[in-house]
């Protein structure tokens, strides 16, 4: 028996260089196509997003002649830009004389299938939420989506109490969704029977957003009013 083991040649040599070269070429073509598409479509996508937001604000503030977006930070008010955080952005509606007619803001909470996104209008005069519009949801047709059509449910949002507490730090009363037929207070939302999860999601979305933004709206109301002039 020989001391040296026979050297076995590989049956199929893997063409390493052509593989790298081909994948590099494919990646180059693909990278170019994706970058080109991104740059080309970016202005159109931004314009679509602006129109969608504007429509949602107009739906909850139909009486506003002019709408302006501001960021309500913990320390002050600034005009909103494209990079402003959505959860701190509010849309102030002004009439022809430059007076505030309402302030719109976004909210979102998990429903049955996915997040329920909504836009609501806050009226500083009555310290209440007086309009709500669902902007995006994927709830079950025939069950969850009844929140969009049910007239009794819509009446919850004609003057939903959102007063600020004495310290001006949060809502005086949490906005809560209660079992159908048990609504007693102005800050409660009467759920729809058979659509309880979605009704509760809307209540949570409003409460979370209003707890954060309404105290800031009240605190900076004078600055927001000056924005209309």
């Amino acid at each position, binding site marked *: 028996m020989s001391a040296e083991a026979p050297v076995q040649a590989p049956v199929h040599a893997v063409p390493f260089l052509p*593989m790298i070269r081909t994948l590099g*070429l*494919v*990646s180059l073509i693909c990278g170019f196509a994706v970058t080109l598409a991104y740059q080309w*479509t970016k202005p159109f996508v931004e314009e*679509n997003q602006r129109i969608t937001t504007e429509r949602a604000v107009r739906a909850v503030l139909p009486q506003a002649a002019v709408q302006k977006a501001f960021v309500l930070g913990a320390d002050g008010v600034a005009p909103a830009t494209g990079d402003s955080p959505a959860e701190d952005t509010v849309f102030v509606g002004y009439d022809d004389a430059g007076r505030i007619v309402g302030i719109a803001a976004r909210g979102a909470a998990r429903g049955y299938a996915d997040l329920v996104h909504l836009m609501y209008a806050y009226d500083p005069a009555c310290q209440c939420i007086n309009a709500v519009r669902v902007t*995006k949801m994927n709830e079950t*047709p025939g069950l969850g989506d009844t929140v969009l059509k049910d007239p009794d449910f819509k009446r919850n949002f004609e003057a939903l109490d959102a007063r600020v507490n004495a310290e001006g730090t949060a809502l005086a009363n949490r906005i809560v969704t209660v079992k159908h037929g048990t609504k007693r207070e102005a800050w409660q939302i009467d759920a729809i029977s058979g659509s309880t999860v979605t009704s509760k999601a809307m209540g949570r979305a409003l409460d979370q957003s209003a707890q954060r933004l309404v105290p800031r709206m009240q605190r900076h109301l004078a600055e927001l009013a000056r924005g209309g002039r």
Partner: protein
Amino acid sequence: MSLVNKEEPLTLDTFVRGVWRENPVFVTLLGMCPTLAVTNSATNAISMGLATVFVLLCSNVLVSMLRKVIPKQVRIAAYIVLIASFVTVVDYAIQAISLEVYEALGAFIQLIVVNCIILGRAEAYASRQTVLNTVVNSVGTGVGFTLALLCLGVVREVLGAGTLFGMRVMPDQFQPWVLMLLPAGGFFVLAGWLLLFDWLNQRRERRALEAQGVTVHGQ
């Protein structure tokens, strides 16, 4: 699905077989995920169909162009990168055209990457055929897929919402069958179309046999 090893001549069949004889939804039962998920309205169905046609056509044309350059060891990786890139392009394009459609289709736009119709055509056809043949075959397959989605979308929207492309087509007294908009409705309607296609195929085969003078038993 045809597995052609040699370049085939361009004929009408190159286009038509994807539409009818090898229809991806009704015959080969591929791409079932978007077929059942996004066909709850005719608009969604046609949008998904057109997005798939774009990705199928562009990626398969590039696969065909590069078929003699791509080593077989890395072909699937290369095809997937090409398909994923065109899906990203179509994703941006749909956002630019309509945010409503983009949100309605949701994750199923990105999931076109794993649609086996596209990878199947790339592997079984585009990697072996000329660019012209690939264009014709991809368009045929894409049209077949779009028509199939539309068949489902039209039935589900009309019965489930009483509308077609968002316009009311059923009388006011009509009570929508909400079930048709739910996943179960997708299965019911697909089963109905499959039954129809199977019956048509069986009838065609029987007539062909009868024309040849063969007696068909059990019919």
